[in-house]
């Protein structure tokens, strides 16, 4: 963790041993540092959940808000003062369930904020309930016989709703993730970086990934680089079961909101 951005007096943190959130925070702070942004002008906003505790450990102004509403709060911050840089930390439940409406409308507005979603496929803080990204067949305290609802693809959702920058990586891909966050921060308009990450305590324990390294191994072996897939797969081929695309999905320049006037 970057020392000058870290609130050391907040230690010990609340994250479980083996949690992926610390890795993601580190990548995000590395990227923020590389933008050269003024620490005073950088604001972190979050909702509720494990991921959403992240701003509390960062030495900037921050808003730890209500469940699912982080993007709506961030919209107020950014529109009231477009010279501030706004980064949102969120989880899959926070972003896609209770916050789904704010998510798609922020993509539609293409407001100039960067959203980092720590997607561990489960509600960690409340003890392991299913989320809108729990894969079919995976178990949680509210899907004890295996999830039977199709999960959201957060990246596809953001692309369809109009975001300017959309990428997906995992907590294994720290270098690519850092680069991707940096690109998101520097791209005007709405950026979503989805990060699939391990939750050994709630998700792993119930789904045969009890050790953090087990889920990291899964992430590494089942993540398929988008460019490679497009280059090598037969036309129309389905992704192998359980695997998912990673990479930069969209980088475009649709009209944006919340960018300061050049004048």
């Amino acid at each position, binding site marked *: 963790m970057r020392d000058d951005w870290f609130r050391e007096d907040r230690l010990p943190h609340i994250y479980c041993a083996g949690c992926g959130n610390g890795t993601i925070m580190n990548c995000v702070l590395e990227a923020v540092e590389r933008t050269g942004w003024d620490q005073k002008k950088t604001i972190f906003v979050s909702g509720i959940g494990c991921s959403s505790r992240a701003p509390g450990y960062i030495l900037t102004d921050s808003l730890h808000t209500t469940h699912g509403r982080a993007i709506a709060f961030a919209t107020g*911050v950014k529109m009231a003062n477009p010279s501030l840089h706004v980064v949102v930390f969120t989880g899959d439940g926070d972003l896609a369930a209770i916050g789904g409406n704010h998510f798609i409308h922020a993509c539609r507005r293409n407001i100039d904020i960067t959203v980092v979603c720590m997607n561990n496929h489960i509600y960690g803080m409340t003890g392991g309930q299913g989320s809108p990204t729990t894969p079919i067949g995976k178990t949680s305290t509210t899907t004890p016989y295996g999830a039977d609802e199709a999960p959201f693809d957060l990246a596809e959702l953001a692309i369809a709703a109009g975001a300017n920058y959309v990428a997906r990586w995992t907590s294994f891909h720290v270098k690519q993730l850092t680069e991707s966050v940096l690109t998101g921060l520097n791209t005007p308009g709405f950026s979503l970086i989805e990060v699939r990450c391990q939750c050994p305590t709630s998700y792993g324990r119930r789904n045969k990934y009890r050790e953090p390294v087990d889920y990291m191994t899964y992430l590494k072996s089942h993540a398929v680089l988008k460019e490679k897939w497009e280059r090598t797969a037969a036309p129309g081929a389905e992704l192998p079961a359980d695997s998912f695309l990673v990479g930069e999905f969209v980088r475009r320049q649709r009209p944006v909101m919340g960018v300061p006037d050049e004048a």
Partner: protein
Amino acid sequence: MQGNIASAEGALAAGCTFFGGYPITPSTEVAEHMAARMPKIKGACFIQMEDEIASMAAIIGAAWTGARSMTATSGPGFSLMMENIGYAVMTETPCVIVNIQRGGPSTGQPTMAAQGDMMQVKFGSHGDYSIIALAPSSVQECFDLTAKAFNLADRFRTPVFLMADEVIGHMREKIEIPDSVEIVRPKTLAEGALPFAPGPDGVPGFAAFGTGRHIPVTGLTHDERGYPDTTNPARHESLVRRLISKIEDARHDIADYAIVNEEAEYVFVCYGAPVRTVREVVERFRIPDTGYLQLRIVWPFPEDLLSRFPKVKAFIVPEMNLGMMAREIERHVSVPVIPVSKIGGDLHTPEELVEAVRVAGGLL
């Protein structure tokens, strides 16, 4: 000018630079007027959010950048805002919420007047807290009290509510717009002071985002640094008691009211649209022995004002609900409190209030 537009103009006169809202009858003209006016004001922002939950969230976010921020809604939207209203209380975020009340419960009567949210505004969010609520009874008061709401919000660092109703919101009257309105900004957070350490008045100094104070704002129970501390009973109790007492202890100082005929035996206590009928009865009809107390600020409740009527035999409380504030008054007095409740959307008629006085006289 229309009441809703007067409210918007009062906000702009007070320096409101952020409006986040979602259309709902009968408050819509507030947002429409802001949408027309704000893009022409440098640094101001109007944004139509995706719902009322987002509207409330956005004005809180905007307030933390130092902007004077506002939203406007009506009952169903007000209910949706409740969670984030509690967040504004807990995080001591100054902001203004206009509620042009309509008939409920549920979607009820969208185009008809009511005063059915008077308890929701005080108790609607979860947990214990206190808020400030104003109630205009004329178009002029829509302007004046909206401007005043921003000063109270900043002084006490709390959400402040303008609890109007459809009659007042859609009424058209001539008003006087002053050249300028008094503007009281929040106390600045002293150098080296902790962001949630209260001053002698119980209110912490404020530092806007971007000014280098690195303030962690959270809706969790927090210490004076803003750091979460959720399992310490003493911490929670002292924080919540302070949030309440910073407002309740000042209630006589911030009370805003009109008293007519302190010698009255039958005293109307009123706020909002029914004030107009009460005035007609007391001042024009001159029914003997009647007087009134008009509350322009209903919360925190200024109960000392009730003792200003030494000869009172009964308080008569006309409301466009089934007796919400009448019950609050009852808590503070030993004489009978007679609610004159009217729901459905029509104002009380003078005859109905004269009859209430007659009935009160017969009961005593």
